């Protein structure tokens, strides 16, 4: 285990070094992370302002600002892109080199993911502060909600990362899985709370969303940070469900990884 941590530390440092070679790209990705939530905030704000009570899905404009601001941060922290990378690694034969090493390729991918988050923080941090001044969010959270929100955020990242990686393993069969990745991303946007708060969903769609893990990757931590989620029973249930999904994703990873490696055809080298 000590070896794993040491090796992971070295790979993380190396990935940060690689990331720093592409500063321009880091800035552009950072800006892109702001655009989506800000556009959605603008639409939701216009909707609320056109209503007589000045609300949308029960939220005032400053509450909407807080929600999308937190979605912006949560979205950045939980982001994972292995569904895009995996197909590339397999098509170009790079996966063969990774499989020859006595360490799961997952660790390199995780290090790359964290390296991106660490490097972009320098750029997105000041941008987030600027956004606060522009949209004036209203946070109703208490310290305990912030503390639980941080736990939920880490678990949201773990859940999204594991699920993305499991889905990415489809590339061992199809080699090109961009469409699968987009479907996953689309679902996480629509029924994960990144397009709009889940309270704005029609009842039938909400039931559908409750059956899937996406809300635990964005909506749940965002609701804790904004202070909108106060019912302890609901919070406990959400944490238990989030943990269950993580365990399920890890078990799926073990099963699918064995099958994927067995099916690997080592194309392109």
């Amino acid at each position, binding site marked *: 285990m000590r*070896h794993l941590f*040491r*090796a992971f*530390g*070295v*790979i993380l440092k*190396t990935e940060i*070094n*690689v990331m720093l*070679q*592409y500063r321009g790209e880091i800035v552009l990705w950072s800006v892109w992370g702001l655009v989506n939530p800000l556009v959605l905030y603008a639409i939701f704000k216009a909707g609320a302002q056109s209503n007589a009570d000045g609300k949308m899905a029960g939220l005032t404009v400053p509450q909407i600002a807080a929600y999308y601001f937190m979605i912006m941060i949560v979205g950045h922290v939980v982001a994972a892109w292995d569904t895009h990378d995996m197909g590339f690694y397999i098509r170009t*034969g*790079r996966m*063969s*080199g990774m*499989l*020859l*090493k*006595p*360490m799961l390729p997952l660790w390199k991918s995780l290090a790359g993911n964290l390296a991106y988050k660490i490097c972009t923080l320098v750029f997105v941090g000041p941008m987030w502060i600027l956004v606060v001044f522009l949209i004036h969010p209203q946070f109703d959270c208490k310290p305990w909600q912030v503390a639980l929100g941080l736990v939920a955020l880490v678990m949201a990242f773990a859940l999204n990362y594991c699920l993305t990686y499991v889905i990415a393993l489809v590339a061992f069969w199809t080699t090109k899985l961009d469409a699968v990745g987009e479907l996953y991303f689309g679902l996480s946007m629509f029924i994960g709370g990144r397009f709009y708060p889940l309270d704005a969903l029609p009842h039938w769609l909400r039931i559908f969303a409750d059956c899937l893990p996406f809300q635990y990757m964005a909506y749940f931590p965002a609701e804790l940070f904004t202070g909108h989620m106060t019912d302890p029973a609901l919070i406990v249930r959400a944490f238990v469900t989030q943990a269950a999904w993580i365990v399920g994703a890890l078990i799926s990873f073990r099963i699918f990884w064995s099958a994927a*490696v*067995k*099916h*690997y*055809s*080592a194309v392109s*080298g």
Partner: protein
Amino acid sequence: MPQIQVDHLSKTFKVTEREGGVRAAMRSLIRRKYKSVAAVDRVSFSVEQGEIVGFLGPNGAGKTTTLKMLSGLLHPTSGEARVLGHIPWKREPQYLRRISMLMGQRSQMQWDLPVMDSFYVHGAIYDLPKDQYQSTLDELIELLDIKSILKKQVRTLSLGERMKCEIAVSLLHRPSVLFLDEPTIGVDITMQTRIRKFIGEYNRKHGATIILTSHYMADVTALCRRIIVIDHGHILFDGQLDDLSEKLAPFKVIKIDLDRDISNYDFASLGEVLLREGRKVEIRVPKGSAPAAAERILSDLPIQDLTIEDPPIEHVIAKAFGGGAAGVPGATESTSEPVVEEVAK
């Protein structure tokens, strides 16, 4: 006990097949046709510790597929193999720490970073003790003469420089078994010689077992006493390099320099005429009748020089693979096919 033991190892790939053109593409949307391709078919061999074995064959013969199975990258369709006592495709970390596979066309280096960073990461992944890492690295740097490029970004290296670094990174953990797939591909002759020399030294110094595939016969003749010839997934020959021409092409080439022009002599009655240019003549004759043919030439013709040679190994291999006879003087489909059939039997 052999370090590599392979028994009836087979790998079949299921590949899609369709005609070219839009219509066929549309049809394949609804109904796909698949066919099974046996890349490796019941291959058996064993390799002892410290042996260097050359794996030869044309493109698509099954060389790389065999190496990929032995390195644990591919699961076989059937058959068994043990390398260093491990079943390779179980991919146990203890196994992967003791082998290395160098694929000439694939990079293991950190493309965007200086060379040294790749070594450092490799050392961490293989959990190398600091002293061992440093001493092996120093040795590799010296032997491969790469000190001057350690701070260069990998993507700015020339192909030869990169290959030397790829070799260094592959050997940093001192593997007991090395699978080298085209280690000298694309590099110039000087660099090829250097790499060959280094591989030979590594083998001698560490007693490493090496399986090498290469399209450059010079790699094979310089490093391997034993070779395995494979084609269409079958082993055609497994034995000493010296015996190869005996088995695959039992011919000698008689080269003659005539003293004066001779126009009316029937050289074809001696064997297959490979070359006739002015006073130079080359004839391929069956090995057993070479002395008699030479004696007849010496008595019939005014000779300035006469030599009897084994055919070059490249030509032997090319003849064995039939269609791959390009560059072989006088080699034709009809003359080469029986050789393959005979050996395959």
